[in-house]
């Protein structure tokens, strides 16, 4: 199945294969009755801090990177679960899968799982590796049950962690919190403390690589730019696909608040393995509408299943 990763020309075939089950995924993952998938329209004012910058503080429902983990159900690859009956590539506009809701033949979990695995890899916005790594990426993806570095309660890393669920902002630094999750991958809670005081990066060679690297923020107009390097190579940079990276990966994230929405992109630059930088499809998170909302404790993570997997099937 993962061969589709490499052969874009076969997407059409994949689309045909997916004709039925695509939105079963949406139905199964979501109990939300959703008839449209347009990104949420911003509402309300964009608050500002006393120093004039947008105030990004708050609980954002950007939990996880499941297709429906954010309100517009869009994956970094550019796949939008548009409605319960349609999945679309947001770049080309092409509808890549449909599901006849009133089908009289019920689909089982087996089919839905396999379909979702396929659909997740069909977005057109994917990183372009140097040819000598194509086979590596394909093998990592095919053997993700064993190879995925984050699926046993390890950190997701940056930018795989996606949009933080909580942002705390002061004039001098930001706090990002990413609760541990058991969605597409099992990850532990992680946090980032991001200085905004104008400091420069530590020279890369002086940094011991870490999961979240050395992050430094600055404002470009009303957009917060978080510049991070100094990673270890123990993470993948997207939720699926086997997208490994080197210790020289450099990530630029952009956060832009408009009313109650927060738009996020991440650009991954890793000349060691990529032919060109890759920028995620913009994702939009909504501010939690409850002004008293707090981020609840996330459960401790203890992974017990991977040792019992009997096949290579995965997300």
């Amino acid at each position, binding site marked *: 199945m993962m061969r589709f990763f490499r052969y874009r020309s076969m997407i059409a075939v994949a689309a045909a294969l997916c004709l039925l089950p695509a939105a079963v995924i949406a139905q199964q993952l*979501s109990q939300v009755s959703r008839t449209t998938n347009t990104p949420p329209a911003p509402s309300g004012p964009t608050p500002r801090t006393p120093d004039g910058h947008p105030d990004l503080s708050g609980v954002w429902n950007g939990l996880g990177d499941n297709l429906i983990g954010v309100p517009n159900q869009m994956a970094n690859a550019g796949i939008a679960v548009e409605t319960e009956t349609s999945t679309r590539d947001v770049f080309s506009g092409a509808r890549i899968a449909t599901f006849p809701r009133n089908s009289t033949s019920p689909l089982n979990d087996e089919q839905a*799982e396999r379909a979702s695995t396929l659909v997740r890899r069909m977005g057109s916005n994917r990183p372009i590796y140097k040819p000598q790594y194509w086979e590596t990426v394909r093998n990592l993806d095919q053997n993700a049950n064993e190879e995925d570095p984050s699926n046993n309660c390890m950190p997701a890393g940056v930018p795989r962690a996606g949009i933080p669920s909580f942002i705390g902002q002061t004039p001098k630094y930001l706090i990002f919190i990413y609760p541990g999750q058991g969605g597409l991958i099992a990850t532990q809670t992680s946090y980032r403390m991001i200085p905004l005081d104008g400091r420069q990066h530590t020279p890369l060679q002086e940094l011991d690589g870490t999961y979240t690297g050395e992050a430094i923020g600055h404002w470009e107009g009303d957009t917060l730019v978080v510049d991070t390097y100094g990673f270890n190579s123990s993470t993948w940079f997207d939720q699926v696909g086997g997208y490994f990276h080197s210790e020289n990966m450099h990530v630029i994230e952009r956060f832009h608040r408009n009313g109650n929405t927060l738009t996020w992109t991440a650009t991954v630059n890793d000349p060691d393995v990529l032919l060109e930088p890759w920028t995620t499809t913009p994702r939009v998170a909504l501010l939690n509408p409850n002004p008293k909302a707090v981020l609840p404790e996330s459960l401790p993570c203890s992974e*017990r299943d991977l040792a019992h997997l009997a096949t290579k099937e995965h*997300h």
Partner: protein
Amino acid sequence: MVEVTTMKYIKKGDILVSGVVLTLGLVLAGPSSAHHSVQAQFDVRKTFTISGTVSKVEWINPHSYLTLNVKDTEGKVQKWAFELAAPGVLRRAGMSREDRGGLKPGDEVTVSGLASKDGSNSGWLQELKLSDGRVIKLATGPNGN
């Protein structure tokens, strides 16, 4: 040793039904949201039912677990581990702290679920019958119902 790894992290009055929690629950609803492929570990076409007493309930990521003491045909007690849906799903299904219908060690229960593929004493829990007659359905069946 019998223990309950707390079901009390939900305190009355906590603002848990925030958008975040709601989203989490919705995102994680259903088998296809497992961090692993369900069918890689369990046979979605093979369900089984077993009765026993609750040994342990653990609320953890990526899956919570219900461990039962089950007597085999020779009367020997075997441990069976059942993988549960995500916390939000459990909560909406009526499983929370003990005084609101949760489980406690020693409770007699009958569970139905998907069988493991590797033959271990484990399963993917779909239905839980308590001795007081309540039935809690935690996951969709093989046909998505």
